[in-house]
């Protein structure tokens, strides 16, 4: 634990993981997109529109996964005051916001021809929109407060409060009547999605996951270097005249 809390150690570890993560991302996106758009059948009801699902569902999964990463980082930052944990949340959140926006947009584009509407205020759609706002709020708090330590703490508290939204998103389709369909993959009695469609879905989910790792590590490295730079700059500013 403490080994990874050291920025230099973290940078070295990230440099080892990154090439593998990039390789996995390229391979999985290649295979996933090939299956999603060419090597999988149309749906018996939706026809070709089912292919939106291969973009939409992994985006929604990763939106929730990334939120849990942000929340876990926030928890660690609040309890153990690890500066790296604070940066981890800051590094993850924008990726999560993008996943959420992608899920919302692809859902709307699918909804218009299939449901007959872009949007309804049902439990699932509304709670995912709230997730998007939570990400925006988290990022805004980081920007709004000048003192990084205080900004990080305020944002972390918001991230932890927002955790309640995650089970609401997951179970909204079971607790309340919604226009959004219930879960097809993660359900007690097994997937209700044909194997020929589950393959591209899982490949795409793996691709998104690898993409997240790449972006997350890159942003962590960026934040660490940015911080090093500002420390060095301050040291220079406060150095006595002629000390160079």
């Amino acid at each position: 634990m403490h080994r990874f809390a050291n920025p230099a150690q973290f940078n070295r570890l990230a440099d080892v993981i990154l090439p593998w993560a990039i390789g996995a991302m390229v391979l999985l996106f290649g295979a996933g997109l090939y299956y999603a758009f060419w090597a999988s059948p149309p749906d018996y009801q939706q026809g070709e529109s089912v292919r939106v699902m291969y973009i939409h569902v992994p985006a929604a999964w990763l939106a929730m996964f990334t939120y849990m990463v942000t929340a876990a980082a926030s928890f660690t930052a609040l309890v153990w005051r690890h500066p790296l944990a604070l940066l981890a949340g800051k590094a993850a959140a924008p990726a999560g916001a993008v996943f959420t926006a992608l899920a919302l947009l692809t859902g709307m584009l699918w909804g218009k021809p299939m449901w007959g509407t872009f949007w309804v205020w049902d439990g699932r759609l509304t709670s995912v929109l709230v997730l998007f706002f939570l990400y925006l709020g988290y990022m805004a708090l980081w920007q709004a407060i000048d003192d990084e330590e205080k900004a990080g703490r305020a944002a972390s508290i918001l991230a932890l409060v927002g955790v309640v939204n995650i089970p609401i998103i997951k179970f909204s389709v079971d607790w309340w009547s919604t226009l959004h369909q219930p879960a097809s993959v993660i359900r007690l009695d097994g997937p209700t999605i044909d194997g020929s469609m589950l393959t591209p879905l899982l490949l795409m989910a793996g691709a998104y996951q690898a993409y997240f790792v790449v972006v997350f590590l890159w942003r962590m490295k960026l934040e660490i270097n940015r911080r090093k730079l500002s420390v060095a700059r301050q040291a220079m500013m406060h150095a006595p005249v002629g000390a160079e």
Partner: protein
Amino acid sequence: MAGLQTRKKQRLVVVSLAVTTLVGASLLVLLALGGDSLSLFLQPSDIKDRQVETGQHFRLGGLVETGSFSRLDDGLTYRFAVTDCLATQPVEFTGLLPDLFREGQGVVTEGELNSSGVFIASTVLAKHDENYRPPGTMPKAEGQCSHPNDQAAAASYTGG
């Protein structure tokens, strides 16, 4: 150093407790108070239970009953029945039906009951179910009745 460790332990307890309490309390409030008001639509059997009045605007959802679909003589108005397997509600709708509208599939309609007890819909949305499969294969569970309060339907549903 010992003082620092206790402070960390204290923070761990406080933050953990705060998060658990907050999440637990919010979920309990939602489940206890929000159940019905957070639902998007009523099902046909709810209409009698809730004593919905004529002219009251609400959303009605369920499966389009197989064999109930017809077009009225004016050529523009569709007539079908929405069922949740406990009750069936006749619906009339004038307009364009969405692509996924089919007998045996879910719909969510919006409108009001007229004096003869027919639901006059102003909007009809198709509700897609959780089944994804290629054409010509057998579904895991198709057109099965499901009602949140109906244990029998829920059992047959998971058994499918």
